[in-house]
Each structure stands twice: as C-alpha cells, then as structure tokens.
C-alpha cells in the first residue's frame, strides 16, 4: 500500500475548448458547404462568384445549425445563425481592404519607372506613355505641404491637448466639444474656407502654403485627440511628485509630463500626417496644380501626389489612369510607412 496510489490527478477541465469532434464537425461543415455551393452553381439557376458565395453561406449556416442543435438542443439555433452572420460580416469588412491593397499593388507596379522620381511633367503630357515625365514635382509638393502643416498644427494640437489635460480651465468642456466638431469638418469645407479667408483677401495666393493651411485645419483635431489620450496616460503621481519637489507647473509639464509622453506625442504627429497626406479635396481650391517642380512654398502653383492621382483620373485615358495607379501606390506606401512607424512607436500603449 503506497500513498501515491491514493493521489488522483485532477486536470482542469475546459468545457469551452473545441474537442477533436468539434473541429472535425467544423471542417465537415465548411467542406460540405463548398460542395453544396459548387453543386448549386452547377445545377440550379445560381451563377457566378456571387451565387457561389451566397449558396456557401446558406449551406454552411444550415449545416452548422443542424449540428449544434444536435449537440446543444434548440437553444443553439439563434446562436449558430448569429455566429455565422458575424463571421460573414467580419469577412465582408476585411475583403475590400485586401482587394484595395492587392489591386493597387498589381496596377501600380506596372507603371513604376525610375524616371517617375527624377522628372516632372513640364516637358510631358499626362496622355504620354508613362516613360515620359514623372511625379517629382508632386512628391516634393506633398513633402512641402506635410512639413508646413506639421509646423503649424503640431504645436497647436499638443498645446490644445495640454490645455485639456493639464490646465483643465473653465473652457475645457467647450474646447473638447470644439475639437470633436472640428474633426468632422468636411475636407472640402476646409478648402473653401482657406480660399475665401486667405487666397481672396491676403497677399498669400494659390500656393503650397495655402494648401498647408487647409490641411492644418484637418490635422489639428487628430493631433489633439491622440496627444490628449497619451497625456492622460502619464500617471498623476509623476505630476504630484514634481509639484511636491517644489517645481512649478510649467517645470513639471516641460521636464516631466511631456518627456514621459514623448513617444506618444510623436505617434500623434505621425497619425496626423497620415490623415492629411492623402487629402485631395482641399487642394483643389488651394494649390492650383502645377506641372513643374516648384520649390517655393509661398509663391506659384504647386502640385501634390493626391492631386496628381486626381488629375490622371479625371483625364480618363489609359495612360493617365496608369499614372494615377502608380502615384497612388507611392502615396499608399508613404501612408503605410507612417502608419507602421506610429504603431511601432506607440506599440506599448496600444494594448
């Protein structure tokens, strides 16, 4: 008689975990769904990809319902229908993104030539084959727009966020509301506003700077809201510690709070840039759209990547549309790079 014989090994039970039978059932349901859908397309009036998907969803849901009712009883009816609807919805949401990314890559790569990055359109027409001319002027234009918009909106956005998190004055609620309202201002309205308030009245005429002003209006809310989120994550202890050491509020904010939130504030800036890099509508009213490289941001017409895409699209010939695809691919790569950087930097706080 040994003591070990009495010890019963108790394994924690996980009744919610899928058993091999469950997995087999799921695989069977999906497989049979495909078979039934294929049969439906072949032998009934349904046709095409749409018919196939439709038949598959119906068949798979019906089978799933059948098996779960056998296992769990009548209660499972609503649950399995809802589950399959939710899966269908999530897939339907994901598909357009995948399609957009793949098709942009496929169509854009066809037109990528080295000369795109080295020449402008001054000696070429949009209707020429893509070997002629390039989008250097648009690339430089976008960079100028981004830099000016950043110089204007980052201080404003971060200061507004500081007002909302550190000062919390009487106007906080109002400003919070205003920032939210501002994030809903349609981009076309921002363009119209800069046209009436700056281009018509002040000496600053159609130029990169005017375009950047319009983009600033769209960028401030993004920067403010993200910065605010980040600043709120800085522990209150740090602020109290600073004040308890005898520092003034200004010293506390400048040497403790802002450095603590630095990565997050950079993320806020990058997300703001990603938000405006692809804006087209405000530029139509403000930058004019040049075909020649223009390095002066305060004078003369300017171009930008989204504007280049827009122009190619509105002209509508195969050559100009090829230009659009290539330009949008470059713009998309820019946005993706910004987005990934923001994610990596802000990775820790993103849960």
């Amino acid at each position, binding site marked *: 008689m040994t003591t070990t014989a009495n010890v019963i090994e108790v394994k924690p039970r996980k009744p919610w975990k899928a058993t091999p039978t469950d997995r087999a059932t799921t695989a069977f349901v999906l497989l049979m769904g495909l078979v039934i859908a294929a049969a439906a397309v072949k032998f009934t009036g349904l046709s095409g990809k749409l018919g196939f998907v439709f038949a598959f969803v119906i068949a798979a849901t019906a089978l799933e319902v059948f098996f779960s009712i056998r296992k769990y009883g009548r209660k499972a009816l609503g649950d399995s229908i809802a589950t399959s609807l939710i899966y269908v919805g999530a897939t339907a949401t994901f598909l*357009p993104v995948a399609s957009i990314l793949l098709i942009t890559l496929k169509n854009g790569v066809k037109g990528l030539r080295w000369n795109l990055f080295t020449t402008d359109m001054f000696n070429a027409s949009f209707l020429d084959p893509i070997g002629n001319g390039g989008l250097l002027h648009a690339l430089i234009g976008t960079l100028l727009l981004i830099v000016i918009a950043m110089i204007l909106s980052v201080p404003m956005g971060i200061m507004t966020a500081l*007002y909302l998190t550190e*000062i919390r004055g009487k106007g906080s609620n109002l*400003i919070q509301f205003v920032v939210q*309202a501002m994030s809903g201002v349609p981009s076309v309205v921002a363009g119209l506003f800069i046209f009436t308030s700056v281009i018509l009245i002040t000496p600053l005429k159609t130029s990169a700077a005017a375009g950047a002003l319009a983009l600033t209006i769209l960028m401030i809310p993004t920067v403010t809201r993200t910065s605010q989120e980040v600043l709120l994550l800085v522990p209150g202890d740090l602020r109290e510690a600073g004040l308890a050491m005898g520092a003034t509020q200004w010293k506390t904010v400048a040497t403790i709070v802002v450095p603590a939130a630095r990565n997050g504030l950079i993320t806020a800036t990058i997300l703001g840039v*990603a938000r405006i890099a692809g804006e*087209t509508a405000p530029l139509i009213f403000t930058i004019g759209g040049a075909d020649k490289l223009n390095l002066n941001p305060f004078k003369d017409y300017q171009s930008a990547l989204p504007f280049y*895409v827009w122009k190619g699209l509105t002209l509508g010939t195969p050559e100009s549309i090829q230009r659009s695809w290539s330009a949008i691919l470059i713009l998309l790569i820019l946005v993706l790079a910004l987005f990934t950087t923001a994610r990596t930097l802000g990775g820790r706080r993103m849960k």
Partner: protein
Amino acid sequence: MSTTLETAPIPTPRALTTNPRTSDKIFRGVVTGFGMTALLILTLIGLFLSVRGIQTLHTQGFGFLTRYSWEVTQTDSGTTYNMGIGAMLLGTVMISIVALVVGVPLSIAMALFLTFYAPARIKTFLVSIVDLMAAFPSVLFGLWGFFVLMPMATYWAKLIFKYLHWIPAFNAPQYFFERSPFIAGLVLAIMIIPIVTSVAREVFAQTPLDRIQAAYALGSTKWGVIKAVVFPFGSSGVVGGAMLGLGRAFGETVAVYTVLNIVFKGNFHVLYGAGGNVASMIILKWGEATGDETTALLAAGFILFLLTLLVNLGANFIVRNTLKSGK
C-alpha cells in the same frame, strides 16, 4: 553644545503660497491661448462661409435649398442665375442612407467579432487593418470604387432590380445602373466602416464584465449574452458611432465624385445612375464657376458645414454619455 545651537543659522521660512508664480501664469496663458485657437478657427469658418451664404440666400431666396436646377444663363442684358441644391441635398441623404444601411451592420458584426469571437492574434491584426482603412486616401477609394467595385456593384444592382423592382426605391426609369447613388453609397459604406467599428468596439468593450459572466452563469449562449447584455448596454453608443459615420458620409467629396453621375434632377431611385452630392457638386462646378456662381458654391459649402456640425455634435454627445455610463 548650547553654543553650536545658537550660532547655527536659522533658515528663513519658505514663503508658502497658493498663488501661481509668474512662469506659471505665462505658461497657463500661452496654453490657454492655443487651446482657444480651435474655437477661433471653427468660428472663422462659420463666419466667412455664412457671409457668402447669406449673400446667396439674398439673391436666390430660400428656393436655393429646395430647387433642383442649376442654371446660369448668359444673355445680352447680363447673366441670370437660377441655382438650387435641392437635388444635391436629396442625393446626399440618399447616398448616406445606403452607406448606413450597408456599413453599420457590417461594422457591428466586425466589432462583435473583434470583441467576443476573434482569437488574440487575429484581433490585433484586424484592429490594425481597420485603423489602416481610416488612413486610406479618399481618392484611392474613388479609384478602386470606379475600376473594381463598380463592375461588380452594377451587376448586383441589376439583380436587385430584377427581383425587387416592385419596391419603388429599387425601380428605375431606364435600364442604366452605372454610377448610381447605390454604388456611391457602397463606396461610402466601406469608408465609414473604420469609424463605426472603432466606436462600436470601444462601447462593446466597456460592457460590465460581471453582467456578461452572470449571463453565462445562467446558461446563456454567446449570442444570448450579446442580445441580453451587450446590445442593451451599447446600443446608444452604436447609434452615436453610426452618426459619426453619417457625418463622414455627408462630407465625403472625391470618392463620391469619382463614382457618381451628378445630375441636377430629383431622383428617388437608388439604383438608377443619376444622383447628387453637395460636396462633390462643389468640385464639379468649381472649375468653371464665376461671380455669383462661386458665391453660391461657398453657400453650399456653408450648408454642408452646418449639416456635418450638427450631426457630429449630436453623435459625440451620445457616444460620450454611453462611455461615461460604463465607468
């Protein structure tokens, strides 16, 4: 011992005050000033555009909001204007309804999937994808919508017409389904998915855990939990999210312009290839507009601004109240 005590210098007591020091006063002043610029900008937008708007309402009357025509006639005696954005307002509402009807259920499904169904890895990946979608340039949606979605959506429209044409909204005066409000609405539906999904996800994630666990403990299925606990708690937040999406849909310009056939006629048939949109109409007419016509476009911009402002403020109010009640 006593001598050392007497000779040690006694520090003067530090001045204790709750009054902010000069550096703080300057700091607070500067930051407050910057905080107020947002308010200033919004007010200026309203002011500058409303001045033009009033001018147009003065010359065109209130018919500007309801009239379906946009005519600029040049005669010897001068130019006469007969402009109205009724068709455009109608079209904007129609497209936005399509976008909401298609986009909101998809977003809710996605948000539920992310919160309650997805495994952790897929969740992180999909959350990034949805956020990335929000950063896609709108002209990209236009390009994709025109060359990829339109051929498919035209086919879907024909199917809907074939089987459901007895519903007045799905009827069409002619067999022409390209560049319809339906297709523009589909593009917009994809564009509003990120914002609606992220708001819905945020609200669903705030559902009190004890209530969810209580429902499971009572033997509920997952769908039962969602129906009995998550929806009643989060429904108003989802409504707010949908309204934020509506605000976005109202103001979208380039994508809609690309896929929509803008016609100054009242068209109530969603599938028929003729529609309107205030924002897109502004760029359509901008290039050739002069004089009073430009002013009228600015007035249209002002009305668009007011519309989106109202929708957005309402939406934010609802979302904030819901999120607060969860804490």
